[in-house]
């Protein structure tokens, strides 16, 4: 029995679909009532046939342009929205059939919304949440002390939530989502609108949660630094479908963006007359001693490119730059 429990994946999503049906109602009197009986709908396929498995301890980034279906997916995973078809299991629990039990085992943060009590001091929210999740006083104190160390909650402990800065609020909110010590954490755009410092703060906290406490984390973001610094795995959604699921390096490879090689020659270089022959290599810029070329590493091995560059003069120094992640994402988003 126990072994079965342990082998369960943290998240298992199978064939998730979500359609939104908006009734079409002509404007005018009693539109609200008529919409009840309307038989015409605009059907929007928000998410189509999404399936994946996230193992315990994973840190997954979920990215995609606005309106691609990221939030809809997260809301289906957390039990807020019921999928039109398909199935979700979180550590073996169905978040739709068993919402309250599931909710007590996961943490959820929506960057755009707060789950704290707006008009009360931050600490009061933790007291209420502790009651709600049945967290013992001692555990609450211990965890909050830990979070305080990592997120410096102390500086706004007594402040009403509405008076917090966005960065403080986000720290407070993430701590709130972790108060009942869930093993699985969902974050929807946790770094949205934050300054560099606040972002760094949050990232290092998430990293600690994942690496030291073994928490499974799935986050959506538009900030590619979040992905690069935190996630071992990326899932890309576009137009409601999963278009990529794998490592960042794999994504880089798949897009096939060129690597830039900047070569400094000791005594200048001499380009061959027939440059067109090597179409795998393109000259981006040149000066007296340096030459910058773009190489598609899917097509040419780096060593071969360097060997060829060596033919044109005596190489003094080589600098290579991998394609920017932002650039990759721009291509992915199309």
């Amino acid at each position, binding site marked *: 029995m126990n072994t079965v429990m342990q082998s369960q994946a943290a998240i298992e999503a199978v064939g998730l679909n979500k359609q939104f049906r908006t009734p079409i109602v002509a404007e005018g009197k009693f539109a*609200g009532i008529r919409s009840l009986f309307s038989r015409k709908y605009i059907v929007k396929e928000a998410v189509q046939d999404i399936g994946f498995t996230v193992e315990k301890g994973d840190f997954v980034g979920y990215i995609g342009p606005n309106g691609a279906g990221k939030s809809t997916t997260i809301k289906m995973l957390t*039990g807020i929205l*019921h999928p039109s078809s398909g199935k979700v299991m979180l550590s073996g629990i169905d978040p*739709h059939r068993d919402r309250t039990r599931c909710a007590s085992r996961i943490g959820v943060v*929506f960057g755009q*919304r707060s789950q704290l009590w*707006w008009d009360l001091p931050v600490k009061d929210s933790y007291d209420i949440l502790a009651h709600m999740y049945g967290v013992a006083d001692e555990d609450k104190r211990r965890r909050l002390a830990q979070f305080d160390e990592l997120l410096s909650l102390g500086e706004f402990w007594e402040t009403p939530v509405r008076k917090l800065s966005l960065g403080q609020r986000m720290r407070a909110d993430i701590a709130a989502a972790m108060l009942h010590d869930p093993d699985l954490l969902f974050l929807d755009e946790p770094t949205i609108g934050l300054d560099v410092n606040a972002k760094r703060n949050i990232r290092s906290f998430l990293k600690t949660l994942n690496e030291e406490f073994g928490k499974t984390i799935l986050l959506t973001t538009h900030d590619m630094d979040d992905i690069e610094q935190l996630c071992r795995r990326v899932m890309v959604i576009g137009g409601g479908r999963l278009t990529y699921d794998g490592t960042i390096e794999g994504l880089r490879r798949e897009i096939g963006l060129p690597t830039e090689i900047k070569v400094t020659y000791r005594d200048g270089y001499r380009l061959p007359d027939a440059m067109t022959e090597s179409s795998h290599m393109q000259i981006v810029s040149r000066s007296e001693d340096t030459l910058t070329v773009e190489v598609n590493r899917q097509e040419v091995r780096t060593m071969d490119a360097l060997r060829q560059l060596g033919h044109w003069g005596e190489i003094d120094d080589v600098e290579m730059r991998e394609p920017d992640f932002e650039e990759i994402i721009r291509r992915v988003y199309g």
Partner: protein
Amino acid sequence: MKMQTNPSTRIRTERRTVIRNYIRLYLLLIRTSVRSRMQYRFNFAFGTVLAAIIQLSEFLMVAIVLAKFGAVRGWSMYEVGYLFALMTLAKTLYRTFGNEVHNLERYLVEGELDQLLTKPLPVLLSLMPRGFRLMPGELLQSGAILTWAMGAMMRSGQITWWAIPQTLFAVFTGGLILFAIGMATAACGFWTTRISMLQNMTEDAAQTAARYPLTLYPGWMSGLMLTAIPVGLVSYVPALYILRGELGVWVFPLLAAASCLAVLLALAFWRFGISKYQSTGS
């Protein structure tokens, strides 16, 4: 020593613990919501005074109607006053505890319901305490009319002291019925998002209509008010027995059964509605 526990007793104890926790949590959330509201003392005081003034003006309206027409279709001024007061008290009971169910549209439009759905509690339990409020204006107004109407009827010997516990019982079942109607109406919002138009019909208009004897209305309408939107059960039906001795004592078990059934049906519809919740884009 071996501890033997019957699994069914264990489940029962567990359920009892869960319910006790829910009650404790409910009270805590009410305290929290009152404390939040007290952050804006002026707003709170002003709102309370304003509600009292609105109630007073409503009372004047009824007073004018009563003074002008006196009796309505064979119902004396006092009896109509009683109907009005009973409806207002039941509504006050519903809105004191269930106001946030009535305000569900706000949660649907702004996607606020998302947060409640991530909590390990039934949605109603996290929703209802947020809107808990005392309504002294309504209580005072309806209490005064009820005292006036019942006092006069007692003096004339139409009713006895027995009418007081019976009336309180009717307030309670009436509150439950209004709550059920409110919850069922709100649940339509899971499909339509906007519900205020529907509420105008099923709540506001229906409640206002049921402040008068149902004999005033055409048959289909009073039929509707006793079945589909059972506002007639809030004040008219209890008044028939309590004031006029019509029907029979079975009215009370009927009211109890009808109000429980209404709440259960509304609850089932609400649960089904939540599975259709569409949330909002972000």
